[in-house]
């Protein structure tokens, strides 16, 4: 009995399920409010993302002609499910991850990429030109940033000597200043990789509003759109948790969780408002030129330091 209740609570309420969804909405509000203030505007009130989600869920879902209906309806659900499952393996709210096994870093990252794959598939599923162009761009961006992002997150994994998130977090908690000093490049690449994953400006070419209306999700409305949207918010929270757990010294308690993830979010908001949108070919060029090289340089430094016995 006990064995089935605890996983159920973990899955539905905390730290998966309701907690991730609600904190996703809260983080989205913080992001939008910050960007607005940086642009000298007021920004939305605290309940705006919640109101948007409720409104979208309540609207009629229009299934366009020429799509595969089962795929159309199932893809948002799969995307959200993947994002929520990934929440079980990261140290949400500063507490230990609910489930942990060897190699769960790779599983978590794979689950986070499922979201982007589902978006790409959803775009390819329709006959609409804008969605097709958006799907192509989403998948192109996926290919380009995924490698540097993964490699950047592997930096702390290498020095911790494990592929298990709880082990890496424990190591980071003990040696937080060491990681920050020896792997600043990885931190920068991971943060920018997170922005690319979430399609935040300046990497929002896949959903460039002024070119291809809404990218891969143009045809979605109502429930499907709401599910994709909250899936993206969940990904924001999980991504922030991962990066701050690895590079900013682990998350020991809820206060640290709040402080560190919000600090990262502030930096991301400032970066969001500073740049013009990059074209998709510029994004790919940026990642495959600078991102990969920087990460490889970082690895070289790690190898040298390990050889010298410091790490």
């Amino acid at each position: 009995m006990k064995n089935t209740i605890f996983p159920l609570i973990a899955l539905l309420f905390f730290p998966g399920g309701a907690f991730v969804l609600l904190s996703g909405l809260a983080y989205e509000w913080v992001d939008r409010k910050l960007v607005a203030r940086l642009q000298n505007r007021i920004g939305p009130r605290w309940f705006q993302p919640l109101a948007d989600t409720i409104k979208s869920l309540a609207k009629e879902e229009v299934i366009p002609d020429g799509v595969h209906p089962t795929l159309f309806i199932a893809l948002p659900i799969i995307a959200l499910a993947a994002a929520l499952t990934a929440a079980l393996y990261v140290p949400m709210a500063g507490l230990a991850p609910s489930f942990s096994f060897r190699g769960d870093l790779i599983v978590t990252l794979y689950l986070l990429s499922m979201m982007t794959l589902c978006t790409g598939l959803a775009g390819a599923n329709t006959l609409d030109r804008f969605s097709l162009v958006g799907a192509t761009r989403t998948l192109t961006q996926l290919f380009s940033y995924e490698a540097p992002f993964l490699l950047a997150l592997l930096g702390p994994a290498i020095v911790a000597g494990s592929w298990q998130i709880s082990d890496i977090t424990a190591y980071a908690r003990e040696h937080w200043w060491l990681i920050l000093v020896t792997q600043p490049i990885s931190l920068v690449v991971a943060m920018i990789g997170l922005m690319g994953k979430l399609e935040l400006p300046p990497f929002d070419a896949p959903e460039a509003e002024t070119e291809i209306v809404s990218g891969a999700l143009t045809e979605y409305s109502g429930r499907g759109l709401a599910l994709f949207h909250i899936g993206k918010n969940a990904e924001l929270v999980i991504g922030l948790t991962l990066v701050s757990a690895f590079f900013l010294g682990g998350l020991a308690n809820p206060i640290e969780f709040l402080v560190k993830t919000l600090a990262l979010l502030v930096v991301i908001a400032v970066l969001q408002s500073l740049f013009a949108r990059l074209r998709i070919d510029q994004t790919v060029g940026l990642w495959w030129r600078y991102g990969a090289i920087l990460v490889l340089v970082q690895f070289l430094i790690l190898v040298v330091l390990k050889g010298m016995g410091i790490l």
Partner: protein
Amino acid sequence: MKLGAMLGNVLTSLFRKPATQKYPFEKLQAPERLRGRLVWDPSKCTGCQLCVKDCPSNAVELIVLDKAAKRFVLRYDIDRCTYCGQCVENCRFKCLEMSSEDWELASIQKQPFTVYYGHDSDVEFLLARSAESDNIAPFGD
């Protein structure tokens, strides 16, 4: 090669008041030359109808009740008016002016958009006359 050229401005905005005006809780003072709603002073009007002649959108109409006794009623359509101010320019006796306080003219019903200016007795007379005979509408067209 400069990345983030707007950084200075962007960061200081975080600590400054937003530029948004919180209308309707905060209303800025309108300048005195603002061309708001038209206002008519019947005591100076001679009934020359120059204002009616040059209105681009037929928003003004002078209804003559008694030319000799100078009893006129001005019918003004707020929704037709383009707020150009030509009638004000044309009037030689300075009867017309555009208010600078009355510029929030939106309404969800059709009725407030037709305004009758004149001495109260004249306006009542006009409305009563149109009510009792159906074929004389208060509108001139």
